[in-house]
């Protein structure tokens, strides 16, 4: 008898664990793990910095404290936070369904191309500020279709989306490069970049580069929270992510959902590209996607796909990204250093979480399983 219930719990636990996230009783424990992980990663990073002969406190001051110090530096942080947050939302949708969308970078490129196409066209010029929503729609459409390729190939050709989204990144980067060298190149300039787009996103405050994009990003995060936890569609995504067998049992058509979810994911990552053009760069240029694609993935994983968790981890990552350039200038440590920190933080968190959810040892797993059984 006892053995039977145990078995039931084990079957359910994977699913229960995924949807329980931060809301469970283990909240304090999880928070502790996250803080410890960040601390451990910083400690290892400090050793590396010492080897380079750089004072860790100076480096971490630039990474963690300076981005929050002044009004204008918070503005700088916000323009990095916007694409990270939007990418993280897109990626979280996909990861919630156990789809690893690693194509953020490529989708950002496509979104940026969409925005620029509208913004530099005659139509865009005549529309003025109204070209912005149109450009964003184009960006969302382009990126959704681009991400949809990976969903389509997964559904109909059973090719792993991990590989296809990565391959699509390399192709999108070249597509963007081609766009700025040939069709979208500013005819008056010598540098391979597009002309300025017709309108820019309005800035929110004087003396800071913070723009309307951050509001759009926060709205996107709210949409994510509502869709995932308050709608049938979100529930289906979670079922699909929890267990494909359960999804089949519930009559969810996997093939169709894979395509829909990838497209939805692309809508948000595409918006990240659109806002990077319309809010920050004002034109299309190479290297625009930067590392936002992967950073978005890290934010989603670090926040464990929970809306609040992802928002907080996005802020941390945006601080690291915006601080890393100052650090590079002042201490000579490459901005790529933060990649190492990010990877270590996620690895330590995974390790910590696995230690508290070990079957038979952790309370958390049983509780969440029990809750699921009741529902």
């Amino acid at each position, binding site marked *: 008898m006892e053995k039977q219930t145990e078995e039931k719990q084990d079957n359910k636990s994977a699913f229960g664990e995924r949807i329980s996230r931060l809301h469970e009783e283990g909240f304090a424990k999880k928070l502790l793990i996250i803080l410890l992980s960040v601390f451990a990663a910083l400690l290892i990073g400090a050793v590396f910095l010492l080897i380079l002969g750089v004072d860790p406190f100076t480096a971490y001051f630039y990474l963690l404290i300076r981005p929050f110090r002044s009004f204008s530096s918070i503005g700088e942080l916000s323009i990095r936070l916007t694409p990270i947050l939007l990418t993280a939302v897109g990626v979280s949708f996909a990861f919630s369904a156990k789809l690893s969308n690693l194509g953020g970078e490529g989708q950002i490129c496509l979104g940026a191309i969409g925005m620029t196409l509208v913004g530099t066209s005659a139509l865009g010029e005549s529309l003025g500020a109204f070209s912005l929503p149109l450009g964003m729609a184009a960006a969302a459409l382009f990126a959704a279709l681009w991400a949809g390729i990976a969903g389509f190939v997964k559904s109909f050709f*059973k090719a792993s989306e991990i590989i296809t989204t990565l391959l699509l990144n390399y192709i999108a980067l070249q597509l963007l490069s081609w766009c700025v060298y040939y069709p979208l190149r500013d005819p008056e300039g010598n540098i391979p970049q597009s002309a300025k787009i017709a309108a820019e996103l309005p800035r929110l405050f004087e003396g800071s580069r913070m723009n309307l994009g951050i509001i759009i990003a926060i709205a996107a995060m709210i949409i994510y929270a509502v869709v995932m936890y308050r709608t049938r569609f979100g529930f289906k995504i979670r079922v699909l992510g929890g267990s494909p067998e359960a999804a089949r049992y519930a009559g969810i058509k996997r093939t169709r959902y894979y395509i829909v979810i990838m497209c939805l994911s692309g809508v948000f990552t595409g918006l990240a590209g659109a806002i990077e053009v319309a809010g920050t760069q004002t034109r299309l240029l190479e290297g625009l996607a930067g590392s936002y694609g992967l950073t978005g993935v890290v934010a989603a994983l670090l926040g464990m796909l929970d809306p609040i968790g992802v928002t907080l981890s996005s802020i941390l990552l945006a601080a690291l990204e915006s601080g890393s350039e100052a650090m590079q200038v002042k201490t000579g440590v490459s901005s790529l250093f933060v990649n190492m920190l*990010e*990877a270590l933080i996620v690895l330590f968190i995974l390790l910590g979480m696995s230690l508290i959810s070990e079957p038979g040892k952790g309370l958390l797993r049983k509780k969440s399983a029990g809750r699921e059984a009741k529902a």
Partner: protein
Amino acid sequence: MNEFLTAAFLIPLFAAGVRMSVPLILGSVGEVVAEKTGVMNIGLEGQMLIAALISFIGAYFTGSLALGILCGGLSGMLTALISAFWCVNRKQDQSVVGIMVNLFAIGFTNFLYRAIFGVRTDRAKVEILESIKIPVLSDIPVIGEIFFDQNILVYIAVLMAVFTLYVLKRTRFGLQIEATGENPKAARSAGVRVKPVRYFGYMFCGFMAGIAGAFLSCGIVGAYTENMSAGRGFICLAVTILARWNPVLSVLAALLFGTVQALQLRLQAMGSELPYQFFVALPYIVTLLSLMLFGWNIHAPKALGKPYNEEQR
């Protein structure tokens, strides 16, 4: 068009194609074994990158390419141990851990290069592997020039593929590997120890990825450049699928991609009507299309990517 079809164009093209395919062969032979044990080593790209640097450092300071390449293999293996611990022992998502290993590698290699070589304008260099002419075979016209006038790692890569196929198909250990990837529970009841086999899968793959990285820095370039693996690790994953988890077919699939890469470089250099971006993207486009055409995952090991719970029966 005729200029493409001359021997002077084609023979160096295919010879370069063979060279370019070597990292793909080594990586995907490793990946075949890892995936046969049921684990997906997405961190292959990161292992390759770290090994490219470590092998270069090894060769630079010891003055011996062989030692450098060995260092590369070992560093790939060590990096794979991270994935193994997280995925096999702690049962974490293999793709997530792999992505993190790749991310870590980008930062780590940048750090290590700077820590050792500092910021200098002149790039540190080592001699590259010499090519070895195989007697008799290298005298065959065309074929000899393409296949039998290469450096030692080219031959080792092909021999490893054949040897791996032999081990997988014809030995007891190969059977244990296959069982672990197909049905770990059944394998366990038959007395196979699943965890060590999966650890072996990761470590073998890491070692092969390491040699692949060493081939890039010590084998053909003679220097380390930032992010020099450039997505080859991901192409290895695709090659593995296309080869249907058969190491010898990996060689053929890798040759195809290697040749496309070599062709891409040559077409770019010749100054064609088409924009250069098209050629840079070409290998990735070919990979994507071939995944759609031939990449049906039906031959994948059944338990691929699923963590194995010893306690769970």
